[in-house]
């Protein structure tokens, strides 16, 4: 499968990339290409120009700054999943990036490209939304940040303005005493999540003090399970409490449902309750 033809522009810096986007009508940003190239092969995307940011070394790397992990947009999934900093401060992100695709895909796919593309069946956005991450953006008007929960505006649509580039993600470190888990039902061929659940719970004195639960794959954007979170907080995180919390998820699906030949929307919602319960059990066992 050949994509439609296009022109190619390799950027040496973020500022140059922003300028190249402004100078080339119909241009798209290319990072690892593991979302964009498949879309181009299917002609779902046919950008007139590609601005390749994949060689900007400053966009690569992971650091801990003032209690937050800062991960450059070009950092690949393999690097994030195996990072001791990420495993210590945001283990649910290490888990989610460790189950994207397969080893070769994880070597090339980048966190910035992944969240900019915003596939609702992809693992990292679910974990990042649960973690309360923010996305750092550079554009003609300077830099700004967008909350992960405000970033997707619809199926494969996001809050980036014209000629803006996502340069990295900032992830607040999990509080001590928190437990988290990412649990996924992978599509058997594509490895995308039919359902993916990121759950974070904190426990103090035997009682749940906070909870953050996000589900991917069921709706066109990640679903925050507010009813589940409300049922968890104040509970003892025992089996009965987790059963009751997981059952509350039915009321949280209020967006546009996803459905395909492999999994209907009804099946996805049913599986979401199952995988949610598993995620809550693991997260609770790791808390305290």
């Amino acid at each position, binding site marked *: 499968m050949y994509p439609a033809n296009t022109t190619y522009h390799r950027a040496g810096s973020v500022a140059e990339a922003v300028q190249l986007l402004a100078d080339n009508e119909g241009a798209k940003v290319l990072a690892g290409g593991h979302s964009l190239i498949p879309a181009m092969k299917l002609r779902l995307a046919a950008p007139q120009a590609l601005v390749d940011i994949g060689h900007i070394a400053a966009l690569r790397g992971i650091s801990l700054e003032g209690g937050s992990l800062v991960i450059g947009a070009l950092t690949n999934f393999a690097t994030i999943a195996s990072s001791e900093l990420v495993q210590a401060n945001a283990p649910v992100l290490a888990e989610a990036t460790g189950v994207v695709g397969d080893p*070769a895909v994880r070597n090339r796919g980048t966190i910035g490209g992944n969240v900019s593309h915003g596939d609702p069946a992809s693992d990292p956005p679910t974990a990042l939304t649960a973690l309360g991450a923010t996305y750092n953006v550079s554009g003609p008007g300077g830099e700004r940040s967008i909350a992960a929960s405000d970033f997707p505006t619809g199926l494969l649509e996001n809050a980036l303005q014209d000629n803006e580039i996502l340069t990295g993600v900032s992830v607040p470190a999990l509080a001590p005493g928190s437990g988290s888990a990412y649990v996924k039902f992978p599509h058997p061929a594509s490895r995308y999540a039919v359902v993916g659940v990121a759950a974070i719970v904190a426990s103090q004195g035997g009682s749940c003090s906070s909870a953050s639960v996000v589900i991917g794959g069921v709706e066109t954007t990640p679903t925050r399970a507010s009813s589940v979170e409300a049922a968890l907080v104040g509970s003892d995180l025992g089996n009965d409490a987790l059963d009751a919390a997981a059952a509350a998820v039915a009321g949280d699906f209020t967006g546009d449902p996803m459905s395909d030949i492999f999994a209907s929307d009804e099946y996805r919602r049913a599986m979401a309750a199952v995988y949610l319960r598993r995620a809550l059990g693991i997260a609770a066992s790791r808390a305290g």
Partner: protein
Amino acid sequence: MKLKVPVEITINGKSCSGEVEPRQLLVHFIRENAGLTGTKVGCDTSQCGTCTVVLDGSTAKACTVLTVQASGSSVTTIEGFADGANLHPLQEAFWNNHALQCGFCTPGMIIAADAILRNNPSPTREEIRQGLEGNICRCTGYQNIVRAVEQAAETMGGG
């Protein structure tokens, strides 16, 4: 629209240059411009893994990389594994264990297996299976492929 751009990629230690359309996939550059047809095109959707190559030190599916992205990079294909007439220990182990039937997946299997052993010289059977997750054998010859990787780990000093 400028249709072709110059590229230069080091493949198996040899510099290969050419002028290509930006839409050309790396796997086609390897096969058609460099003439190295060991790397196969299978599913063309980054799922089957038979186009796997080593790109700047780590495995990549060459059907999901544009040639222009890889310009300036270094690539190793299956043709870079044997040392003259001496097979690589993984190739030897695949031969000994009948780890190929039609052989179409074999180049990608060997390159993915090499990546497993470089990161982990003594993998468990389960770790081998996880490492080969992105490589599909439509003859379903997985048992012998896993055995071959185990044997190669032993001959390469791990195991």
